[in-house]
């Protein structure tokens, strides 16, 4: 893309949205990547020749996806309230979550993923326990499984959370007397992976939703997630940070050479090495290490630990 004037940068030439160009210099567009590659890396006197643009486009997009997972960590944030169904539909460009939190008074309380909050499909049965089918022979399903109904009803409670089974605490009833772990010592046998006062969730990838425990009803959920950088298929919006631009060229070149017939193995290996080296470079550059911030962190060494 051609360089733009300061006026275009700050005001988008006076058109709305005026902030359209802010910060755009950090990025190079997919269109430029493909164009530059076709111009500089493809030719009769180059390693890559006779390659179609859609081939380059495919590998460029794949490269951008890969580096989005590996190094870019361009985290997107989405906030939504959760209703009675205790469900949060995943955004269309969701690939994986980074953190899921409840927002209360501007503070984020991270939730933990609990594999014990499960989900299931339940088939409908008649009074005799026989499965019910529709006219096409497909088995009929309950709208909600027993697991879902239990979860929506607030069961099961988490272990060692603020609301327990007796007197607000988890305990054991022996011969009519209740024993609580606090009274007799430590939390022996505590499953630390689930020991959290905040609520929990489980992602149902197949249904594309996050199911929450009942405590988040009517709460505001903040989902931090990574995408693949494909911007919902809008090619014009796909960009990559300039610090990773060289990696994308190397990735595309390697991917094409790797698939091309009669390419010498040493050429493929060379391209692969170069791709890996550029990925490491990109990761270091994008890790965003600043000496000032490092200094701030290291100051913690002088803290007294009680």
């Amino acid at each position, binding site marked *: 893309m051609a360089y733009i004037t300061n006026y275009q940068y700050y005001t988008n030439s006076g058109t709305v949205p005026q902030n359209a160009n802010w910060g755009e210099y950090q990025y190079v567009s997919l*269109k430029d990547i*493909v164009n530059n590659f076709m111009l500089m890396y493809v030719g*009769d*006197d180059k390693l890559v020749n006779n390659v*179609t*643009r*859609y081939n380059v*486009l*495919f590998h460029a*997009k*794949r490269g951008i996806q890969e580096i989005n997972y590996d190094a870019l960590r361009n985290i997107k944030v989405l906030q939504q309230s959760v209703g009675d169904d205790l469900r949060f539909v995943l955004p269309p460009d969701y690939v994986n979550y980074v953190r899921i939190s409840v927002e209360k008074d501007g503070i984020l309380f991270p939730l933990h993923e609990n594999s014990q909050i499960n989900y299931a499909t339940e088939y409908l049965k008649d009074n005799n326990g026989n499965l019910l089918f529709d006219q096409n022979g497909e088995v009929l399903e309950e709208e909600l499984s027993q697991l879902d109904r239990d979860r929506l009803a607030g069961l099961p409670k988490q272990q060692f959370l603020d609301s327990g089974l007796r007197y607000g605490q988890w305990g054991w009833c022996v011969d009519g007397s209740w024993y609580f772990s606090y009274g007799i010592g430590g939390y022996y046998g505590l499953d630390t992976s689930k020991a959290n006062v905040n609520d929990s969730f489980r992602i149902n990838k197949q249904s594309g939703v996050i199911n929450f425990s009942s405590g988040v009803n009517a709460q505001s959920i903040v989902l931090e997630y990574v995408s693949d950088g*494909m911007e919902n*298929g809008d*090619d*014009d919006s796909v960009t990559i940070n300039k610090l990773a631009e060289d990696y994308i060229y190397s990735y595309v070149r390697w991917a094409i050479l790797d698939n091309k017939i009669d390419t010498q193995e040493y050429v493929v290996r060379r391209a692969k090495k170069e791709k890996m080296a550029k990925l490491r470079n990109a990761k270091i550059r994008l890790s965003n290490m600043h000496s000032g911030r490092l200094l701030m962190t290291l100051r913690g060494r002088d803290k007294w630990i009680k």
Partner: protein
Amino acid sequence: MINEVRNTVMAILNKDNNGYVTPEEFNLFAKQAQLELFEEYFYDYKNALNLQNKRLSNSGYADIPKQLAEVIDLFTKKSTGLTYVGGTTSFTLPTDWYTLNVVYYNTTTEVERVNQNKINQLVMSNITAPTTTYPAYYLTGASNSTPTPTSPGNSIIVYPSTIINNIDVLYVRYPSDPKWTYNTVSGSPVFNQSAADYQDFELPLSDQDTLVFKILEYAGVNIREAAVTAFASQEEAINDQKET
């Protein structure tokens, strides 16, 4: 150039009274010879590139691929705003195209050629489906508006199908048919350059000798004079050898 070529051909043919070629026959041979040479340029260009990739080519005046490309460039032509035929959702190509160089959408966006057997896979692909930023086309047969095409495929179908205008094409055209025009004076044809249908050869002057040899080959076959054909073939072979 055409008159010099004809004079040379006639001079060689008339030696030893080998025979005579009429202006109409000459024009037919001239067209054939020019087409043959025109096509050879593309193969020569390919061979020159192969040599270049083997580091057997040089720069400056010895840059043969560049010189060959310059000749081919003489035949490039741009046709803007191709006609869209709604019935077949295709764009009609110009009738004189030899090979398509680049197809553009909205003046600058390149439309990529895709083989017919790949287009459906491309359209169905989530990641590479043609868009207005990366459009694609495939070559197809005659559209409804041109039932008698001069080329096997004379229209293109562009994807995405929302593109129905602003398609331009940069292509290499066929050379125009050469025509030695004349007036008959005292029963003999006399060259007339100012005739409306006069058309000179479009190849560079450096091809004059090759054109003469090629026309002589055809003329030799025509007048059943093996010596003429043999002479022309031999000269052409020597010429080719020098150029490689």
